[in-house]
């Protein structure tokens, strides 16, 4: 324990010895890093859950189970429903609102429109915070670099007052300044990796939803084509 205290002191001393702009930069980077990690984990959980739910719903849907029962289930358990289930629910509700006897064109248009709207909202939810990760990933190295440059500038300015330049005079200043770069990179690297990963995941989900929308509208269109079924149904 005593060891760690002395280590801590030296480390804290290095940070507290930095000039105010460098300290501000460090604080900013720490904040950015923390928030980006928070989003990284949140997105990780959300996307993992989303993919799982989509897989489950797709397998249930294509097993050929009753659309009505599926709709009932989706409507009752809306909190636990995945995006795909919600898209289906919105589309099917819109579809059932129309009574039989109306033209197939408007029915399908509005059904597809309803599904589109939910799809947009869901994508928006999935993509939320990704832009923050992208920003942190691209900007924080520069912010860290700014802190470092500022710190090194100070170190050299102090060096000019000393007269005799030794490594011992510059080293602490540079070490201090480099902490800012290290923090910037620490914030940026995971953010970039997470952004790329999550962007591709959401893109995959988006294509799945879009094709699902087309498929559902096809299935519903086939139902309209058989008015007798439709009559039983409503």
């Amino acid at each position: 324990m005593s060891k760690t205290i002395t280590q801590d002191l030296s480390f804290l001393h290095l940070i507290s010895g930095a000039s105010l702009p460098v300290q501000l930069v460090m604080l900013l980077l720490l904040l950015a890093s923390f928030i980006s990690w928070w989003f990284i984990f949140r997105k990780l959980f959300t996307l993992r859950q989303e993919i799982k739910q989509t897989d489950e719903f797709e397998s249930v849907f294509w097993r050929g189970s009753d659309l009505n029962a599926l709709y009932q289930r989706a409507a009752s358990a809306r909190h636990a429903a995945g995006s795909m289930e919600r898209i289906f629910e919105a589309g099917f509700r819109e579809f059932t609102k129309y009574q039989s006897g109306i033209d197939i064109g408007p029915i399908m248009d509005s059904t597809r429109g309803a599904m589109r709207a939910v799809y947009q909202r869901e994508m928006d939810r999935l993509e939320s915070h990704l832009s923050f990760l992208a920003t942190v990933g691209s900007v924080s190295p520069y912010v860290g670099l700014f802190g470092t440059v500022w710190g090194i500038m100070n170190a050299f300015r102090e060096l000019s007052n000393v007269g005799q330049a030794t490594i011992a005079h510059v080293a602490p200043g540079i070490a201090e300044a480099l902490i800012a770069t290290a923090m910037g990179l620490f914030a940026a690297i995971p953010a970039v990796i997470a952004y790329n990963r999550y962007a591709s995941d959401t893109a995959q989900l988006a294509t799945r939803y879009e094709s699902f929308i087309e498929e559902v509208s096809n299935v519903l269109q086939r139902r309209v084509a058989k008015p007798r079924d439709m009559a039983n149904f409503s």
Partner: protein
Amino acid sequence: MVRLPGNKNEPGKLRAALFALLVHAAFLALLVFGLNWKNEAPEAMSVDLWADLPQRPIKPVSPVAQVTSQPEPAKPQSRPQQKTQPQPQPVIKATPPPVRKPEIALKDKTEKPQPKEEVKKLEPVKKEVSKEEPAKKPVEKPASKEEVKKPELVKKEAPKTESIKKVEQKTEKKDDARQQAEAQKQDQQREQQMAAAKAAQARALGEIEKYKAMIQAKIRSRIIMPPDLPGNPAVEFMVTLLPGGDVLTVTLRKSSSYTAFDEAVERAIYLAKPLPLPPDPGLFNEFRNLNITVYYRE
């Protein structure tokens, strides 16, 4: 409908925050430990340098020798006690003696090898020279002779009871003679080595003093003294040298309280490099960390 999913993720948010905290704690620990390694490295180096010094051991070694040689004078005290034990035996004259005497014999055997080992262990260290040793050897020699004689006394008493012991004693006597001879030889060798080392040391000391004075003079000649300082301030610097006389670092040990004078001396130390060093690289350890005190007036 849109906000519902947000509520659904509520537990995930907390968990995510916890994970984020964990990641940062790990990063901080990494930074802290990474820095610590750097702090410790120079310490380890300085220890190595000290261990290499040929002259330094002189003082540390001799106390060790004293400590180890003390037990030897102490043994005579314990032996008399052992001797007194056999004396009451005739009074009892029953079975006890055969039981006790083997014990004594055993003790002698076990004790004797120890002093020998001690002497051997000391030798390599003593070769490196010590001034106090000549005084010690006379003490040691008598001690070893006593050791050798006393067992014999015990043995003379022993024959009263068993003949088996006689055989053991004979072999012991032979061992003792060998030990004596060895000890004498070792003593002679040691004395020779010590004499040689002493001479070398004296020469080295003279050399070191000479070069230290030369270094002082060279630095002094480069000082541009600040004018009109009151009194005779002194400044002390610790100078770390590289082999070849280059100055690695100059650290202020004791300021003269006149920064102008301090700085003038520091500049002079850098100006004076390369500092004169003795041609014998073995002596460099004496110059690795030099304390240089400069007075304003001579």
